[in-house]
C-alpha cells in the first residue's frame, strides 16, 4: 500500500513539473506570436516598446480559457491513462 501511495506521489510530482514547464512554454509561444503580429501591423513602430508590451498584455488576458491552454491539462491525465493501460496489458491479457 505504501508503495502504491509512493507511486501516486511521484507521478503527481513529475506531472506537475511538466505541467508548469509546458504552461510557461505555450504562454511564451503566444507572446512571441503577438509581438510579431504587432510588428506586422505597425511596421514603422516595430521592435520593443511600451505600446507593444501593453498590446501583448491585453491580448493575453483570456489566454487561460482558450482550448490550447486547457489542453495542457492532458499532462495530468495521459500518464495515468498510460499506467492503467500498462496494468491491463501486463496483468489481464
Amino acid at each position, binding site marked *: 500500500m505504501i*508503495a502504491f501511495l509512493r507511486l501516486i506521489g511521484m507521478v503527481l510530482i513529475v506531472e506537475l513539473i511538466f505541467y508548469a514547464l509546458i504552461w510557461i512554454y505555450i504562454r511564451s509561444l503566444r507572446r512571441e506570436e503577438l509581438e510579431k503580429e504587432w510588428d506586422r501591423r505597425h511596421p514603422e513602430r516595430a521592435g520593443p516598446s511600451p505600446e507593444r508590451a501593453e498590446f501583448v498584455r491585453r491580448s493575453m488576458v483570456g489566454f487561460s480559457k482558450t482550448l490550447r491552454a486547457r489542453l495542457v491539462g492532458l499532462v495530468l491525465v495521459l500518464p495515468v491513462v498510460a499506467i492503467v493501460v500498462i*496494468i491491463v496489458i*501486463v496483468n489481464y491479457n
Partner: protein
Amino acid sequence: MRWFLTVLGVIFGIAVFSFLDYTLPSKQTVRITNTYNRLTDIGANAFFYASPDTGTVQNAQGQRDVRFIDTVRPNGKPYVYRNEDTGWIWPPYFKYDSSNLHAQATDLRSTAANPEWVSVTSYGWRIAWLSVYPNAISIKPVAGPEVKPFNWAAQIILLILGALLFLLWRMWNQFRERTIDPAVRSADAAWDRLDARADAARDRARGRMRRWWDGLRGR
C-alpha cells in the same frame, strides 16, 4: 579537454543504451521445458531482482523463493527466466500476476520430441556468472520457432521518449531566445552605458587637470 569530453560523451551514450536495453521489453521465441520455485541467494546482484517490498518473502539468510521458467531457444541453447512481481515504481511494468503467468507457463511446457513454441516478452539481461535472470512479463503461443512477433511496445515507448526529448529541446530553445539572450543583451547595454559614463568622466577630469596644469604654467 576535448578528449575528456569525448570520453564522457561515449560513457554517457553507453549508459543510456544499456539502461534502455535493460528496461525496455524484448521478445524471444522459445520452448518452455520446466517451471519451478527455488530458494535463491540474493547478495550483490540484488539490483537485478525485484525490490524487497513487492511481496517476495525473504528469509533470515537473505534467500528468496523465486519462480523460474526454463526454456530452450530455437538454436538449441538454454535460456532461463525468473518470474517475479515488479512492484509499483521501477521498472514500470506494474506486474502482479506472476502466479497466473507461472500457471500459464507450466501449461505450455513441452518436450524436444513434441515441441510447442511460445513468444516470451521480458525485460532484463541473462548474466550467468552473476546469477542474473530476465523477468518474464507475458507468454503467447506461436506457430513455430521461426515466428518472431514485432516488438510494438518497445517501439512505441522509444517514439514517446523521442517526442519528449524533442519537446524539451524546443522548450529550452524558446527559453534561451526569449529570456536568456535578452538578459545578456540588456546586461551588455548596461555595461556599455557604464563604460561610456566612465569615459566621459575621465575626459572631463582630464580637461580639468589640463586646465589646472596649464594655469600653473601661466598659459
